[in-house]
């Protein structure tokens, strides 16, 4: 096994507003290998975006606090970084692509300058060199007439084009890790495929590791080698994509897969929705947070949080079904 480029250990993040505390991330751990794509899936509010933002320490300093845990990038402790060290990390080592390309570009700045900004900061290029590089980047992400387009403003671009520009900005300094926070959610389906294609192609060229945040399992199957499933701030299951898709071990993962239409599925197999909706994270009770919605719930689930169990070198799951005492229940789960 390779040395991970980025690792997260027992991360806890909470948000403080006037009189309440929201524990958005509760003990998340994972490691990202060089060149791989790790997908993080979950419903909205599951803490996946917060996890992603905390990797670059991009959470709003006034309200969000990382209360526990460690983030290591290239064997350095990211949580102890000074502002200056953080600036060197952001854009140069780890980059980020956001969900909505309509709002993630500065509307009053030419896109060329928006790409060049990072280059000027990290690569110490001269103005003309940076400009050349910016044109190169635009060509790389598939924008025609790049040399003219660098003087355009974002509103002159379509959504898909803008997302390409955002990716160009993110990859300009050849970061080793790219965090893509729902990069295709706001786009039309046909454009989604193009952007995913682009990201895959660029990854092949540059060897960047990607953390892909999404709620779309189709995207996961297309892009990722490994997938982590999050629910109410915790990773409930993590493992290789093919394993998770064929043999999900957590009822939530299974539920997600069953509620997704698949081309290769038996026609007679109906889609099964997960009953209910995710609980309010401010009012979690003891026990497994999925218990109220879990078709395989046992009495123990309401009172005790399950521990993480390894089902192989790369596959972990947190569920009471893995307990030897739950054998009977597990059989009905697997059937």
């Amino acid at each position: 096994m390779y040395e991970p480029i980025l690792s997260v250990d027992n991360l806890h993040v909470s948000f403080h507003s006037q009189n309440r505390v929201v524990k958005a991330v509760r003990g998340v751990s994972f490691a990202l290998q060089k060149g791989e794509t790790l997908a993080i899936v979950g419903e909205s509010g599951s803490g996946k975006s917060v996890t992603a933002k905390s990797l670059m320490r991009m959470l709003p300093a006034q309200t969000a606090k990382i209360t526990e845990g460690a983030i290591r990038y290239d064997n350095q402790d990211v949580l102890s970084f000074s502002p200056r060290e953080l600036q060197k990390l952001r854009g140069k080592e780890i980059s980020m692509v956001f969900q909505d390309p309509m709002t993630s570009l500065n509307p009053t700045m030419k896109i060329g300058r928006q790409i060049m900004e990072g280059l000027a900061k990290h690569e110490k290029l001269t103005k003309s060199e940076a400009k050349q590089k910016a044109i190169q980047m635009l060509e790389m992400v598939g924008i025609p007439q790049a040399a003219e387009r660098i003087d355009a403003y974002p509103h002159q671009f379509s959504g898909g084009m803008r997302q390409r520009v955002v990716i160009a900005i993110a990859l300009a300094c050849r970061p080793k890790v790219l965090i893509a926070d729902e990069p295709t959610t706001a786009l039309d389906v046909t454009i989604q495929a193009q952007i995913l294609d682009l990201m895959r192609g660029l990854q092949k060229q540059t060897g960047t590791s990607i953390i892909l945040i999404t709620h779309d399992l189709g995207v996961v199957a297309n892009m990722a080698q490994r997938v982590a499933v999050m629910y109410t701030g915790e990773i409930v299951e993590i493992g290789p994509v093919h394993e998770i898709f064929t043999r999900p071990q957590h009822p939530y993962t299974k539920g997600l897969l069953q509620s997704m239409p698949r081309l290769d599925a038996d026609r007679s197999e109906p889609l099964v929705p997960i009953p209910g909706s995710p609980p309010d994270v401010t009012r979690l009770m003891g026990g497994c947070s999925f218990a109220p919605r879990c078709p395989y719930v046992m009495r123990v689930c309401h009172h005790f949080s399950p521990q993480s169990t390894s089902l192989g070198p790369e596959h972990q799951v947190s569920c009471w079904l893995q307990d030897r005492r739950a054998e009977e229940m597990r059989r009905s789960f697997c059937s």
Partner: protein
Amino acid sequence: MSAELGKNESTLVSQVHSHSSVFPPAEVTDDLFVHEPLDSRLQEQVSGQTVSVWKDAWRRLLKNRGTVIAMCIIVLITLLALIGPQLSGLPYDEQNLTFSNLPPKVAGLEWLGFDGKDAKGIDQYEARGITEHFWFGTDEFGRDLWTRVWKGTQISLTIALLAALLDLFIGVAYGGISAFYGGKIDNVMQRIIEVLVGIPNLIVIILFILILDPGIFSIVLAMIVTGWVGMARVVRGQMMQIKAQEFVLASRALGASNSRLIVKHLLPNAVGPILVTLMFTIPTAIFFEAFLSFIGLGLQPPLASLGVLIQDGYVSMRYFTYKLVFPGIVISALMISFNLLADGLRDALDPRMKK
């Protein structure tokens, strides 16, 4: 309230598990590994209690300390404006030259400057052998300033309220018609507004006051000549926005009548911004009235408004500072409070601010 909710939930949970035990188990025992039926009551948690929009806004309004203080000050000043003139037992327009230019004196509040001493430090009450106390002092005709200040506040508030209400009626009618009928009517009405917006407000007011005899009603009239335009724009903008929203479309599709649409959807959703605009109109009107009085276009003596009193006070500010200070404080407090209240209202009614 949240504690109460929490209690509800825990009773719910214990009901679910009532067949096993009331208390949660202390450790993971084998008997806990049995299937439990799903309880749909636990699956959907609506966050927070369902409160009406208005109650919610009211609650948020009360959370804002500045707004609460502002509301208290407005209530206090309004009360004083209503009963203040009666409290001292002196009429606002009775001249008595033996009492002229007396500094303020309140028994027990001497340490606050209510000591009856003039600019030279002489206690005028002692020097002139006056036993009566004038809380805010008197003007050069010996009129009681306490009475005049509150009478003036009363008049200023009346003018402001009248102007704001008339603005409201004209603005809502004009904006509403413009937005509701749309098309050509809207087009023409908007062109008219565009021209009116180009005219500086205060100049129109001054011109109108010049031809009308200064008085409460003419000041109000002058202020609404162009004052309603702002309200009309807010109403129209709001209505247009709501009209385009899907819930209106949906209820149209379901066959709702025009009047039902207006009453059920358009008006309730426009009330917030209208209220906020109204709240901002009041301090503006108070200011305009004072402004007019200050440049000599206000009410004529012996009537007093805050503006008239400030103008009188300003003239003799050098030797009788108190004449400026009291009306100055009252008008400033009123303006601050109304502005704060309007700000607070806007924040409370703006759902985007909801956290």
